[in-house]
């Protein structure tokens, strides 16, 4: 993040944006399929990482329609549909020209310069009408905002202070930056560019304030033009999915003890023909869980609302849940060592299952060795992906429509699984908080 001045730094800012995009692309671009990196390929097969290239858009404030606001046009939701941004109280669009043949525009211009950054108009924030800050709300989250910015007047080399604050989807302020610049009244064009960018949480709101340093940092009216937005990638991986994507093969228990419950032990003693399978209770990598929780907080990611809090609180393992699901559709059941969450999203039903109990199975000698981090099981009515993270074994199941692979030919395609896997988050209940 940063606030930039001069055209040269504008280029720097754009490059920084490009680098952000490049970094994301690097995270999410498929490497060549190699037998030593099967998981990366599988995640890609899941459709999780088909990240659209970062998209930017620019608002030049020309041709905007709306009710009059003094000599300007009130600016509120005109750009919501087209650009995903709306403006709070005090914003308007004004003429910004002194050399045009339109006498009225010249007389009404608020610009201290001969022309707008582009075209004939600029956005304005009037402090008295809207408070100290221009508020921009983003219905489509952004990762970067930049604009040319100017006071509507001042003295040569007078000091001004720009402050930008970014807020995540939960309304939490996640980034703040401020920088002082000396205004150059005689510049030919707008010399100052302010920008804010983040690699952390996508931004749902940005507040912009311009203060006059010589007057005790009093907020003043200001102009912006050529507002440029970079939308946050929508298919980036959650920290949970990132942790899975980094794996290069199947996970092995990081520690385990052999367990049998009293009830099962009783039953075991009554078995007649065959012996009971060995079950192990594995250790959880709580440090990795903590890191994921912190990262999720930074990103403003949280689980969608669910039912079954008592099971969450009883669970001595981290629970993976979707961050997006149909309202009220997540239902959790479980016990101390295992849980299952069913939910719906995108018109499909899923189940997420996790367990720190492992039943030891010797597979058929004819079964192939499987060194992949994600394995699949196809059934008559569902497709299940199995993976492990944080020392725990999980599976994600997509239930076929009508519970039939015949009725739902796409059921065994892995894209739908991948899209859900990409936005899984981890939560910990009361028992888990003790890091057992």
């Amino acid at each position: 993040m940063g606030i930039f001045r001069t055209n040269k730094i504008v280029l720097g800012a754009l490059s920084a944006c490009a680098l952000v995009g490049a970094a994301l692309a690097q995270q999410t671009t498929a490497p060549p399929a190699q037998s030593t990196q099967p998981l990366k390929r599988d995640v890609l097969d899941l459709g999780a990482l088909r990240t659209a290239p970062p998209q930017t858009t620019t608002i030049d404030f020309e041709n905007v329609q709306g009710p009059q606001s003094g000599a300007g046009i009130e600016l509120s939701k005109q750009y919501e549909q087209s650009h995903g941004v709306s403006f709070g109280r005090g914003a308007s669009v004004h003429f910004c020209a002194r050399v045009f043949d339109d006498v009225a525009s010249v007389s009404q211009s608020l610009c201290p310069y001969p022309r707008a950054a582009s075209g004939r108009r600029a956005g304005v924030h009037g402090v008295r009408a809207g408070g100290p800050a221009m508020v921009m709300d983003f219905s489509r989250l952004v990762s970067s905002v930049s604009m040319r910015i100017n006071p509507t007047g001042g003295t040569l080399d007078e000091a001004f202070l720009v402050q930008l604050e970014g807020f995540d989807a939960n309304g939490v302020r996640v980034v703040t930056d401020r920088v002082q610049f000396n205004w150059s009244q005689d510049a030919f064009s707008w010399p100052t560019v302010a920008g804010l960018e983040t690699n952390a949480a996508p931004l749902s709101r940005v507040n912009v304030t311009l203060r006059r340093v010589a007057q005790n940092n009093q907020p003043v009216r200001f102009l912006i033009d050529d507002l440029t937005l970079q939308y946050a990638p929508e298919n980036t991986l959650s920290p949970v999915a990132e942790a899975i994507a980094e794996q290069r093969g199947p996970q092995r228990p990081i520690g385990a003890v052999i367990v049998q419950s009293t009830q099962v032990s009783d039953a075991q003693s009554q078995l007649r023909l065959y012996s009971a399978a060995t079950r192990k209770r594995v250790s959880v990598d709580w440090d990795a869980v903590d890191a994921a929780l912190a990262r999720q907080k930074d990103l403003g990611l949280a689980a969608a609302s669910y039912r079954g809090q008592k099971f969450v609180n009883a669970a001595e393992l981290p629970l993976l849940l979707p961050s997006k699901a149909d309202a009220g559709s997540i239902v959790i059941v479980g016990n101390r060592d295992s849980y299952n969450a069913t939910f719906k999203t995108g018109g499909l039903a899923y189940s997420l299952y996790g367990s720190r109990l492992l039943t030891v199975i010797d597979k058929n000698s004819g079964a192939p060795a499987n060194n992949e981090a994600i394995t699949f099981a196809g059934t008559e009515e569902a497709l299940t992906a199995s993976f492990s993270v944080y020392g725990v074994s999980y599976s994600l199941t997509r239930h076929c429509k009508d519970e039939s692979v015949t009725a739902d030919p796409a059921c065994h395609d892995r894209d739908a699984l991948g899209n859900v896997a990409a936005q899984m988050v981890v939560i910990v209940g009361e028992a888990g908080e003790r890091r057992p």
Partner: protein
Amino acid sequence: MTRVLFIILLIVFAVLLFNKHVGLPDGLIPSGSGETETPAPAAPDDEEDAPSLPPAPDEEGTPVPQPPALDPDWHFAPGDLLPGSSTTHGDDGVTDASVVAPSMRFPFETGPAFSNSQIFGQGGGGYAGGWAGPGGSENDPANFDYAWRDNFCEVRTNPAKHANELCDGGLGHNGQDIRPATCENAVHWIVAPEDGHISWVGSISVNVFGAETGYIYKNLHVQKPLPDWVEVGAPVTKGQRIGRASDLLSASSRATTVHLHYEIHGGAEIDGAMRSGPLPPYSSLVEAYMDLVDDNPDQIAPLSPPADITKCTQPQWP
């Protein structure tokens, strides 16, 4: 008194003679198989050597009827699929015979029940691109008789979609098919295998999360309507009815036989790697079935005929 002692001595003598000349057979060929495979052991060694006692006389000397018992050859060993029925046309399923769910209740409320192949059994439809099936009728008594067969890892209609890393070729059936006592549709109750909660209710399935084991028990081809209380999150007790077996292949297709497709899904360690998915259920079903019929010996014998076949329909194989 002397007479009584004499009778006792006669009984002891008879027992000794029985031990020496009768004993338990071994290596019996299952009825109707026409093959010479060695069946699964019917009991551990110490029990296998135990003699079957002749009926004990009551005070009047009348033999007391002994309860029926499972035939020693009532099931094939875990992993012993029908010849040629695996995805690679072999007969090996998962031969690890360990019981993954020792305390599990048998999923049908009553017996008899028959774990066996649907597509390779009489009337079976075979599988697309492969074997066309044996012909005959689904209602053939052979389908409703012992010996049981494991069909975890059996080939499926679209093998490529049935990934199962435990099986030959990494492909195969992820559960065990079980026929109820008869081919009648929507008659035979499926019950919860342990205490827990309903974890999923689909068009034709009801899954149970086991509170003790943490397993998901998947029951497929379940006929609706279900009991009113069955919904995701509802508590369930071991043995409680959760639905009835049917021939539904989907909500709108009666394209399979009347049977229960049963899976046990849980965390697993396979070749040292952590996994989560379907576990081989056959051994657990064998043990659970023995518990069921021990308590209900009248539910052992196959019905003869297995049903009024006029009540049964042939599946419309796709």
